[in-house]
């Protein structure tokens, strides 16, 4: 064992929340709405993994690219059928957000029906399961620990390169900034939006495919962690993807480690209140600094009182 199992679980969970938070923030940047269905894409990733590893009996790691494609196509279909149409109609942010909630309900129910169909045809447990025994061992440590960390780091690095170096990534950022100005420059806004929805859906399903390797999964698992995803994104500031990396990792780590710490001090009953930790983050961030870490950083470096506070601590800002 490399680390205590609890810390490893926290790191795996934090990696998943980070990837999901990145996608959530990207959707918020391009479409200007919080996508409540984002967690449900992860649920589809879970079931792609289940189908490939348990039903077909293959290596679970084969399912990761498949999950990426499946999640991406769900994202594209959602954009083409609902979000794009509603945006073209000129609906407001509230109507669009309600439509994402509707998509969330619809997709979750569809996933449940798929799980029940699997149970009926293959006569196995499909509603609550865990795929830890399918994983390989590396020096006594479950392989998903390394894989999750690698995928998380590689995703962040690739995404950074993609958004800053390639033409499509730059145009994606331009569309997020100002769609009309971007279309004046000759960028196909609709197609860029489609690519970004494909990317976010794919990343979410990829994170979902990692989920059953360590945690107990069920069809609604994806929609349960949406609070953590939103907390991570909001902590990061919802203004750029890099904030979401720090925010998502922080929320994911603290959700497991803080619960454990509180359980050690107050007693085992605190475990029931685990979902309150991301909610606490969410409400605290919204009430104290609605722009999250980004806003806090800018307040520290730009405002008069922030600079005073920094100079008291002995840090100099140019």
């Amino acid at each position, binding site marked *: 064992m490399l680390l205590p199992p609890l810390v490893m679980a926290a790191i795996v969970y934090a990696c998943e929340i980070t990837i999901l938070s990145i996608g959530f923030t990207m959707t918020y940047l391009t479409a200007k709405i*919080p996508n409540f269905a984002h967690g449900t894409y992860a649920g589809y990733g879970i079931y792609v993994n289940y189908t490939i590893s348990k039903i077909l009996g293959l290596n679970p790691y084969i399912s990761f690219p498949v999950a990426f494609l499946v999640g991406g196509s769900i994202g594209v279909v959602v954009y083409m059928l609902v979000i794009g149409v509603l945006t073209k109609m000129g609906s407001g942010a509230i109507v669009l957000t*309600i439509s994402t*909630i509707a998509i969330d309900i*619809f997709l979750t129910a*569809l996933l449940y029906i798929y799980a029940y169909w699997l149970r009926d045809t293959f006569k196995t447990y499909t509603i609550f399961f865990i795929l830890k025994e399918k994983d390989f061992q590396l020096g006594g440590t479950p392989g998903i620990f390394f894989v999750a960390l690698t995928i998380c780091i590689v995703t962040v690095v690739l995404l950074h390169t993609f958004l800053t170096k390639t033409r499509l990534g730059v145009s994606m950022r331009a569309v997020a900034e100002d769609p009309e100005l971007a279309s004046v420059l000759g960028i196909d806004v609709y197609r860029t939006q489609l690519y970004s929805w494909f990317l976010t859906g794919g990343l979410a399903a990829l994170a979902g495919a990692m989920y059953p390797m360590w945690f107990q999964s069920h069809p609604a698992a994806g929609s349960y962690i949406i609070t953590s995803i939103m907390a991570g994104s909001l902590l990061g500031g919802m203004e750029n993807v890099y904030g979401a990396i720090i925010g998502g990792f922080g929320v994911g780590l603290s959700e497991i480690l803080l619960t454990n710490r509180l359980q050690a001090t107050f007693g085992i009953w605190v475990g029931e209140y685990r979902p309150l930790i991301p*909610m606490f983050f969410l409400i605290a961030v*919204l009430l104290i600094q*609605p722009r999250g870490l980004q806003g806090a950083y800018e307040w520290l470096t730009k405002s008069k009182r922030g600079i005073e506070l920094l100079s008291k601590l002995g840090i100099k800002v140019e």
Partner: protein
Amino acid sequence: MLAVIGSSVAAITGMSRLIVDIAMYFGLFVIVAMALNFQYGNAGIPNFGCAVQVIVGGFTVSGITLRLAYWLVEKAGVKLLPYQTAYDWLYNSQLNVVTVNNYLKTHPLLGVSLLLFSIAVAMVLGAVIGWVISVPAIRLRATYLMITLITMADASQIFGRNIPYICGGTLGIWIPNVFAWYPGDRGVITAVVTLAIGLICFFIFRTMLNSPYGRLMRAIRENEVTCLSVGKNVVGIRRNILMFASAITAIPGVMTAYYYSYVVDAMYQRAYWTYWSWLMLILGGPGNNAGTFLGCALVIAMRRVIIVYKWFFDKILFFPISYFEQILLGVLLIVVMIFRPDGLIPEKLLYIPGVNYTKLVRERVKVDWRTAPKMRLAGKRRRFSLKFWRR
């Protein structure tokens, strides 16, 4: 409906039970949907926290009214089993409630006053919740507010599930029958009372919407900055609206508890109270009460029929029918939003004295004449004047 009330002394079974059930749920959800229409349709506040206020109503009954009922009945000299500790509170609940029901059978005044007390307390607590919600609502963007409210609904459910003193934790708690004095079926009288409350709420909302305050609300919805520049206290008005509507929304929680004589946190899921009420509002058309009524009636009739015939669907389908219901909810919401963005009954322009709509706009404008019905014929009457007859 009347036939059902007339035959209330007899046992309610079969089709009559379904009608009572639909009436009850219509009464419950129409209150929530009207309050939502008041907030979103007319004032433009996207309140996604209906479930929080409804759960407060339920917790009021189980946490406060139940204790009060026990205390009053013990004061009157009836012996109850102990209920102070969490264990006794849960495991003696059923027997205690039976004793209390026997006492309430001969004391109708106590039952009615318990009902009124729980509604009053729930409304006060609901207003407090509305005030708590309004603090971030003023500062935050609408989408952020939605996130906060949805998580708040989950949080309140977690508290209810884990603190047995509120509503008995996962086991739930029994509630005395405040209509024990009524000789017939409990469901019928609860449905009638709920519908009556809904009717009162409807008249209150209608009066408020047709008053100058209602017009001010619509003005804020259309353009906030203009209202600010005219000197209206937009923040204060929003807070008042949220508090008032939250107080009304707490009533269905109370009535649900009395309808089932039982409270458990799972009865107050956010998917149930928030999403279905929003579907009703959007299906019917935000901004008018007629649309809310139509949407509510359609959705409730469909849902209750599906639930009642669950045994039939479960035989042919391989999955629980509730998931099909959720698919229906999602698809209906999206289809209505895309193909009928204004709902089944779109909102009409309100008649404002002094504006000549036919001259102002060349195209035909639908005008809501209900505030000033006589003005509808004002232009025509002069043209076909029969004054010379009277002379």
